[in-house]
């Protein structure tokens, strides 16, 4: 077993992990990235479509291009990337944190460090999670697995496709499968509105005349050895209209039914979770309840743009660096999700610093108003031309905005949408 020592270890070498590590390295700290796949870049490497980097680089890049820019930066630093290496166990019981990592190339590694940045990303929800009944033939895949098979491995998993769920990966794959000569018969969404970004609905479905069935439930998968069809049933006022059910013949079902932050390691070290995000509960400095353990990117909450991921991850890396240098948050104030807000992340702000909050709404609305209140007094009001659950909203709150909170004995910040 090889013993290694770093100031900080970043778990996950996707966009979040690389961005956080670059901040730590920039602050003069020693840092390693542990990545279980064979290369850095995370899920970006299979996202060969464009649309990445509009905020970060002010230009439109493909996923691999976006990843490459960060990889190039990592390569120019002292950051040690361990790829093909899986963190199996973390021990935070002693003074230093110990990570046991398994790798074919490096063997078994025991890394000790003072700070950990969790950046493991998320996984796709699968058929079992949404409990679609029916048979269990070949041909039922998550959209991300299909994306991997097509874009990296060069295989086409099926020819006649129904996509369940209108998440972004599903929409992207609807277009991708059409481009490689497959027939995408339908995208089926249980909700009355799409789960993916509007731009993807337009560019991936409308442009290819792929029907989108909103308020429809996939009620059965048929086929003995290989998928032969799916049964789809309309929902009206929440009730299944079984008499209106219909079947679409297909050989493949791709699932794009949501992403779940992958927090098994976090839970193992005792990190408290936020049931609304399925990610860790963190303070204004993106630190979990376990001292010195930070979280960012899709492991904290599922983002819609990688640009937001790296923005958040840079802050996590910088906060971890400050923590390592002994600096702590000054005045922590709780942030509450008010009416029509599903969640806010992080759940705390530092009333004496500049903060960035990410949130998701529960409603679809044009001309909405977002209000930030401290102890029921409005301190900030922002007009939004259009909001929907699939589009993340960001709010900046500076020390000036939060002066009222700094002065009150038991302050609560609440963010509400109307």
């Amino acid at each position, binding site marked *: 077993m090889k013993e290694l020592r770093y100031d900080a270890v970043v778990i996950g070498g996707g966009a979040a992990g690389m961005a956080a590590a670059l901040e730590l390295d920039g602050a003069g700290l020693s840092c390693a990235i542990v990545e279980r796949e064979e290369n850095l870049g995370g899920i970006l490497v299979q996202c060969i479509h464009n649309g990445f980097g509009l905020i970060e680089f002010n230009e439109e890049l493909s996923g691999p291009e976006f990843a490459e820019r960060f990889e190039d930066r990592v390569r120019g630093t002292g950051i040690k990337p361990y790829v093909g290496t899986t963190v199996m166990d973390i021990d935070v019981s002693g003074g230093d944190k110990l990570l046991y990592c*398994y790798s074919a190339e490096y063997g078994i590694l025991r890394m000790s460090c003072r700070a950990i940045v969790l950046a493991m990303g998320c996984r796709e929800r699968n058929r*079992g999670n949404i409990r679609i009944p029916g048979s269990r033939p070949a041909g039922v895949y998550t959209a991300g697995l299909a994306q991997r098979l097509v874009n990296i491995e060069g295989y086409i998993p099926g020819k006649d496709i129904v996509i369940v769920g209108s998440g972004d990966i599903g929409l992207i794959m609807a277009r991708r499968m059409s481009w490689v000569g497959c027939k995408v018969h339908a995208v089926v969404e249980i909700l009355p509105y799409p789960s993916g970004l509007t731009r993807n609905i337009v560019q991936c479905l409308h442009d290819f005349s792929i029907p989108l069935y909103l308020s429809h439930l996939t009620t059965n998968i048929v086929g003995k050895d*290989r998928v032969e069809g799916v049964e789809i049933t309309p929902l009206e006022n929440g009730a299944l209209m079984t008499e209106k059910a219909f079947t679409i013949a297909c050989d493949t079902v791709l699932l794009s039914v949501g992403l779940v932050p992958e927090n098994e390691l976090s839970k193992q070290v005792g990190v408290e979770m936020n049931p609304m995000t399925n990610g860790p509960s963190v303070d204004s400095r993106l630190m979990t309840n376990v001292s010195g353990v930070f979280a960012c990117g899709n492991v904290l909450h599922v983002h819609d743009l990688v640009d937001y991921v790296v923005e958040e991850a840079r802050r996590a890396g910088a906060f971890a660096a400050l923590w390592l240098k002994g600096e702590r948050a000054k005045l922590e104030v709780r942030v509450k999700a008010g009416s029509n807000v599903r969640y806010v992340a992080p759940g705390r702000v530092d009333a004496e610093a500049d903060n960035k909050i990410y949130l998701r709404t529960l409603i679809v609305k044009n001309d909405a108003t977002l209000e930030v209140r401290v102890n029921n007094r409005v301190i900030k009001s922002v007009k939004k031309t259009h909001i929907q659950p699939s589009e993340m909203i960001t709010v900046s709150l500076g020390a000036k905005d939060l002066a009222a909170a700094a002065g009150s004995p038991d302050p609560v910040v609440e963010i509400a949408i109307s």
Partner: protein
Amino acid sequence: MGETSGKGSCDGYDVAIIGAGVSGANIARRLSAYELDVVLLDKEADVSFGTSKANSGIVHGGFHHNRKYLKSRLEIQGAMMFDRLALELDFPFRRCGIVVAALHDDEMLAIDQLYRQGVENGVIGIEMCSRERMLGLEPKLSPDTVGGLWAPGGGIVEPYRFAFSLVESAVKNGARVLTGFAVERAERSGERWTVGASDGRAVSASYVVNAAGLFADEVSRIFGAEEYRIRARKGEYYLLDRLTKARPDRVVFPVPTSVSKGMLVIPTVEGTVLLGPTAESIEDKTDLSTTRSELEKILGSARTMIPSISETDVITSFAGLRPTLGEDFYIDISAKAPGFIQVAGIQSPGLTASPAIGEYVKDLLKKAGLRLVEKGDYDPYVEKRPHMKDVDHFAADGLVKKDPAYGNMVCRCERVSEAEIVAAVRAGHTTLDGIKYFTRAQMGRCQGGFCTYKIIKIVMRETGLGWDEITKRGDASRILKDTL
């Protein structure tokens, strides 16, 4: 599992066993201790792909059935054989004990009857329990529990791993396995049977054992033996993530009804939780689909016993089929077809009874005239294979130094390394399902979302199979349709 050859490749055998589920596998393994040429035939792409792969995985407690039934006697005998088998065959097995929870005072009458039956059956350690005793034995039980039954000898087992190990042991001792062998015809000439498959292959044998599960009736007909009808009764299950807070320490049974032992909460021996099975008679013996209406019953029923069960912990659902034929097992020498042994209607407690079925059928064959001479070099042990999820970091270090592939974690959810996948392929499991049952890769919370493409690549590399030959479970279940 392609074609596994132990001894020579002669097509003449002393005994041919049709069906490589736990019954057939136990019979084959038992017979492999004698100087006999044995062949195990199965129509599926791998062994254990029928009823044996989708059931509750329980070694029963011996109190559910009256001793007047053969199935009860074999259950009690079989249950006692598991400790030694697990030692020899290295499959996951643990005696975690069984509780039967009564939720109303009137159910205590049934508990009393089960207890008396258990005592009459000679079940060791069986106990009638107060509410406090029950909650002490299983703290996750509902506070509504009024009392119940405790059978400490009950246990949990991975049924497919059990079958794989039995077959491996039989092959090690000279038996031969032919998969994809769907018996279609049988002819008797002289003292021998010739058994033909739908693909044209044929074997001959002096004795034939019909352990064909759901299709034992069809096989019996092919051999001109007794006419009977196996009916399929479907059982649907939910599987919960190993991180669920609702995992009990014991197998939790409800008070049984007249038709079924009821829906259980099972802490599987490998760490997940199984809920089910439902019980529904169906016509199509290949219908393994789950249904909304049946699945809905499971969570409700399971929650009455363990209220903390949550649907958010569900990682998959599946169905298995019980091959039912009247009240009891039908294991006997055929009165119509010579040298033909019937092993039919092996529903619950078939898995528990299966080691005893092996013994029983061995004795029937002897009675029917088969000469049994013990092998001098019989080796009951199979090779123990390490599992990365079960070893500590120091043992892992040793393994990785020997073979770096142990360090490459292919399945993150169930912690399965590349070396374990390779071992599965080399043991003959080349379908994605076969690898899943052998290694647990694809069986965890992501259900193969991350590891499927890696496993496909390893199978292709190890076997030389083309992309279009990779299947989920053989034949038409191809995974990929084309290349770019």
